[in-house]
């Protein structure tokens, strides 16, 4: 039974978002299973086709999505990493130097042109004010490192631990991405093998009833996953994926936090600072409660 568009919108408002998502995915799964069942009852042999692949995608999207979000979300790290690439920094500093030479020439051009023009229309005293203005600004433009070179030296201003955290987060993200690929492979292989066993069974038997057909498919898959989820391979990959994902999150957050913490202009407390404050408050609360208990016991005695 399909749900109308209006019903789905209303359902989204009433149901938990997870239920809504899983229901939508199961509607799609049902469409594919119906197609396979129709093929089966018409006497055609089943084979592993795009319908099975689509069922797989709908089935595991709920679980893969947060992991994929971590894989893709972390791509920003690569851009950050470029900022600290020394070769790139050298290249950037040459560009900046050329740009400052251009600015200096442009400045001189404007100065000379203005002096010529001003000498004709303004009194000499006004010209002196202009020259003074030019003199002070010339100092700035003569030392471009203050304004422009700063950007390329930024990494040297940061504590070493900032860069170490960034490096570690990249390292764990790469390991996590590898483990996730392997994880996806194990899940897909398990699914495909069980689907193939179901196909053999379906081609040997005849399931007139759709629910029996769909139920048999689910049973084959469920049994296969019951086995694999406790297998050594699965446990190893799941552990590596989770450990590295957690380390990536931790080190990346510490990288951002330490950058903020080392900047005297930063007006914000980081979440780690708050965490430490909450730890101390809770510890004090425990001590107060212990003292209150002792006082109350003495009072009773």
């Amino acid at each position, binding site marked *: 039974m399909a749900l109308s568009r209006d019903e789905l919108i209303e359902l989204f*408002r009433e149901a938990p978002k997870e239920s809504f998502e*899983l229901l939508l995915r199961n509607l799609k799964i049902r469409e594919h299973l119906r197609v396979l069942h129709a093929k089966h009852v018409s006497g055609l042999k089943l084979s592993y086709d795009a319908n099975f692949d689509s069922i797989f995608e709908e089935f595991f999207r709920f*679980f893969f999505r*947060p992991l994929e979000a971590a894989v893709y979300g972390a791509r920003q790290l690569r851009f950050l990493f470029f900022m600290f690439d020394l070769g790139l920094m050298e290249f950037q500093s040459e560009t900046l130097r050329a740009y400052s030479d251009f600015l200096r020439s442009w400045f001189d051009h404007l100065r000379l042109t203005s002096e010529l023009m001003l000498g004709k229309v303004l009194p000499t005293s006004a010209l002196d004010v202009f020259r003074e203005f030019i003199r002070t600004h010339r100092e700035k433009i003569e030392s471009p490192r203050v304004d422009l070179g700063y950007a390329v030296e930024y990494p040297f201003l940061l504590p070493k631990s900032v860069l170490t955290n960034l490096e570690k987060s990249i390292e764990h993200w790469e390991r996590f991405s590898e483990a996730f690929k392997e994880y996806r492979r194990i899940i897909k292989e398990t699914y495909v093998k069980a689907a193939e066993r179901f196909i053999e069974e379906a081609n040997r038997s005849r399931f007139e009833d759709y629910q029996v057909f769909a139920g048999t498919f*689910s049973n084959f898959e469920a049994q296969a*996953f019951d086995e694999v*989820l406790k297998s050594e391979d699965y446990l190893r990959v799941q552990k590596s994926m989770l450990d590295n994902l957690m380390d990536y999150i931790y080190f990346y957050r510490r990288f951002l936090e330490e950058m903020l913490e080392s900047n005297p202009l930063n007006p914000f407390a980081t979440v780690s600072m708050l965490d430490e404050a909450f730890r101390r*408050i*809770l510890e004090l609360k*425990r001590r107060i409660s212990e003292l209150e208990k002792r006082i109350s016991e003495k009072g009773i005695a």
Partner: protein
Amino acid sequence: MIVEKIKGIKPGPCEYETVYEDAPFKLHRFKGEVGHKTPILVTYAFINRPYVLDLHRDVSVIKLLLEARLDVWMVDWGYPSLADRHLRLEDYVEFIDTCVGKICELTGTDKVTLWGYCLGSTLAVIYAALHPEKVRNLVIQTPPINFNTQNTLAVWARNVDPEKVSRALFNVTGDFLNVAFLLVDPVRLVIGKYQSLLDSLEDEKSVKDFFYMDHWIFDSPAVAGKVYEEYITRWYHRNEVIEGKFTVGGRKVDLNQIRMPLLVLAAAKDHITPPESVLPFFESVPSQDKKMLLSDKGHIGLTVSRSSHAKIWPEAIKWVVERSD
């Protein structure tokens, strides 16, 4: 329309008042006529919300207890925030003691029936072993006391490094835990369950039951980071409770102190806390008056299935009532 069937679904039909609060924890007292001397204190698991015991009128265990004229109190562990990340298991045990103190003060009794559910049972057993003089009866429902079991969830828990998780996430979010709970049995929980719903969209009662349950499943609080570390390390990795190595504030939790009447409610198809999670405990504690009721349902089915309400609950409540005066 499916939406018409689920509009206005609101779990928790039994009324209660909040008697005491120490954020994020609360103590509730259900409203009802009291006809027995010993109050019941329900301690639910800190990884879900306790209203599964009062999901809706047809399957409310709380309603049955109130109808039996029992004085029902319940601990609500709340929704821990960043401010609560350093809570420890001993804070939970301490809060149970505070609740027992409040109940005794307000009702003029000196003992309660302590009723634990899932991880709330583990806390209840620890409390009962530390303060046996304050526990008249101990009821534990789908209790994990022995964590060395072979169900997928236990195998995974032994394979997790909880410090890495807590360090990265601070508190372990409900979403994170939900993914794990669904992934232990992905085909049945993600496909089977929803395909069954699609098969019965015309049946109003089935649709309502389904969404009552899903509202509860996905209303999942975070677990305080340090509690998560302790519960995975000390309970799953080291199995400290059943091995007599668990301590609270320096005091060893001695299960030989469980001498009060004991009722165990277990579920044969429980994939979270299978019967093996409690059998060694049930067999070894010295309590003389002990009984086990085994349902043929799963972890939650024991509470909300109509068959459990027909067979298990009348017997369980009779057992409590007989020991409440």
